[in-house]
């Protein structure tokens, strides 16, 4: 792989052992990918603070420098960790203090994470603590090279913002944060950003739930392809596209999609495909919609819901407001917990706007930093949950061994109030 003089200097240790280790990892990684060179980035979104048993042991052995070296740089040497070279944010991690006592999540993890936040913020990491950094200030511009992880953030970054990132990991983002470099490969190359699959929808996409169902279908249909969507839809908002991309990244490996007329690199189908006809096509009609709905809902048998989860990816302020509107003057069923996951910055705005109070008075909770899938914890005794997130309904049955229902926001709020799942395809 070709390195610039500056990159060679970093590799050879002129900026210290940690930067050298970071460059060494980037070279090994880039060469294994077949990248010809690295590119510069000034926008890294990664994870250092997420507690895990392996990390706890490394911290015990050698502090956070050891944990960063091993996990974020793939380096076993005892090295000092300098400040991050380029702007770097912490994505979602484990539950914070606001979840203490709500679930079987260990207090030790909350403490470990708080300790990590103190260490890494001293190193220049912005503790955004969310899977949606673009909702709270990390908003790359079109064409910008980024090094992001978190599949739903990656697909949003590429598709909706038109910035460029591959689906990175804890180690590659750690190396990028200390060097300002990432392999110039995959989604960074303009020729790799054109559509590979046409997906036509005969179902009009008009609601958040429909965008989620369609996204789950698209991921299953194209795998890691780059779908170009045709059909008709009402003007989507941030939440619709966030949900669509997250679902497509969950059921397949979609990192980039084009919605002609909506997303920045696709003024038209021809534009999205660079004039070439995509070789594969898939159709989404009422039958496919039914199948996707049934597949998502085949992890549920009991309709006695004891947990309702909203906000995956993390809820926007508008989504929080929508929940608050539905909960005014109402009470959540005493046997049900309702959690809405959101970034800390938006929780602060929700509190100032009065939504937090309405939701809390009804018996629900706004929680930050994490989600049940990341922290592997739901309210104690949860057997059956419901969510408006295709991603959570996909993951939680595996991660927590609980049953799951997917439906609309109205159906989820209804389940929270009645304790009964009454969702059906096309429901309100």
């Amino acid at each position: 792989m070709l390195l610039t003089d500056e990159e060679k200097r970093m590799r050879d240790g002129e900026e210290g052992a940690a930067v050298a280790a970071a460059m060494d990892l980037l070279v090994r990684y880039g060469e294994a990918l077949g990248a010809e060179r690295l590119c510069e980035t000034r926008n890294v979104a990664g994870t250092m603070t997420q507690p895990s048993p392996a990390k706890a042991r490394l911290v015990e052995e050698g502090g956070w420098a050891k944990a960063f070296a091993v996990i974020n740089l793939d380096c076993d040497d005892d090295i000092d960790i300098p400040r991050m070279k380029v702007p770097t944010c912490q994505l979602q991690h484990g539950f914070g203090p606001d979840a203490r006592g709500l679930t079987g999540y260990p207090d030790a993890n909350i403490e470990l994470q708080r300790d990590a936040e103190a260490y890494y913020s001293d190193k220049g990491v912005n503790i955004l603590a969310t899977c949606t950094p673009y909702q709270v200030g990390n908003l790359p511009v079109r064409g910008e090279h980024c090094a992001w992880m978190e599949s739903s953030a990656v697909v949003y970054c590429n598709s909706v913002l038109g910035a460029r990132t591959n689906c990175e990991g804890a180690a590659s983002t750690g190396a990028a944060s200390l060097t300002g470099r990432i392999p110039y490969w995959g989604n960074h190359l303009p020729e790799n950003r054109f559509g590979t699959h046409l997906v036509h929808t005969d179902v009009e996409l008009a609601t958040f739930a429909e965008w989620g169902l369609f996204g789950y279908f698209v991921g299953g249909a194209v795998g890691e392809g780059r779908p170009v969507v045709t059909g008709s839809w009402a003007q989507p908002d941030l939440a619709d596209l966030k949900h669509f991309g997250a679902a497509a990244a969950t059921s397949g490996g979609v990192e980039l999609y084009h919605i002609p007329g909506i997303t920045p690199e696709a003024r038209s189908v021809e534009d999205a495909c660079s004039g070439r006809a995509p070789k594969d096509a898939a159709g989404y009609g009422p039958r496919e919609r039914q199948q996707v709905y049934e597949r998502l809902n085949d992890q549920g048998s009991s309709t006695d819901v004891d947990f309702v989860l909203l906000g995956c990816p993390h809820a926007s302020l508008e989504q929080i407001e929508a929940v608050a509107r539905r909960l005014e003057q109402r009470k959540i069923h005493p046997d049900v917990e309702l959690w809405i996951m959101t970034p800390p910055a938006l929780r602060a705005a929700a509190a100032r706007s009065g939504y937090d109070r309405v939701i809390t008075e009804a018996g629900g909770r706004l929680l930050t930093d994490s989600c049940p899938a990341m922290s592997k914890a739901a309210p104690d005794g949860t057997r059956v949950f419901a969510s408006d997130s295709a991603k959570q309904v996909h993951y939680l049955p595996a991660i927590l061994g609980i049953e799951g229902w997917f439906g609309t926001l109205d159906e989820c709020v209804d389940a929270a109030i009645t304790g009964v799942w009454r969702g059906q395809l096309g429901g309100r």
Partner: protein
Amino acid sequence: MAEGPALVSTEEISGFGGIDPARGVIIEPRHELFGQCFTGVVLVFPGAKGSSGWAGFFQSTRLMGTAPLAMVFNTVTTKAVLGAIVTRVPTVVECDRDPTSLFRTGNRVRVDADTGLVTVLDDE
């Protein structure tokens, strides 16, 4: 270079939500390898799917002593390649013929990451 029994999947594997690093087991309920342990075997699979936590979860298998012995997969992605690097196991990708249809679970396999050669030692 590594030599051991193969565990073959024709389905892509999730890291986050797909494996339990503490036990080295596939935990995705719908997966054909659900409940199977990959510790100490040659994991043969089409590629990575799902979350970007893939590499970190497989790295955790190394740190917790539950890692596969080697990996053989078809599709080169950032997730799977970074995962193989931080798991620090011999890995061969993009074989001439599809190893997920050629090999069977239990076959004794040698993975030579230097030459890129994957050999079945006990093919009938």
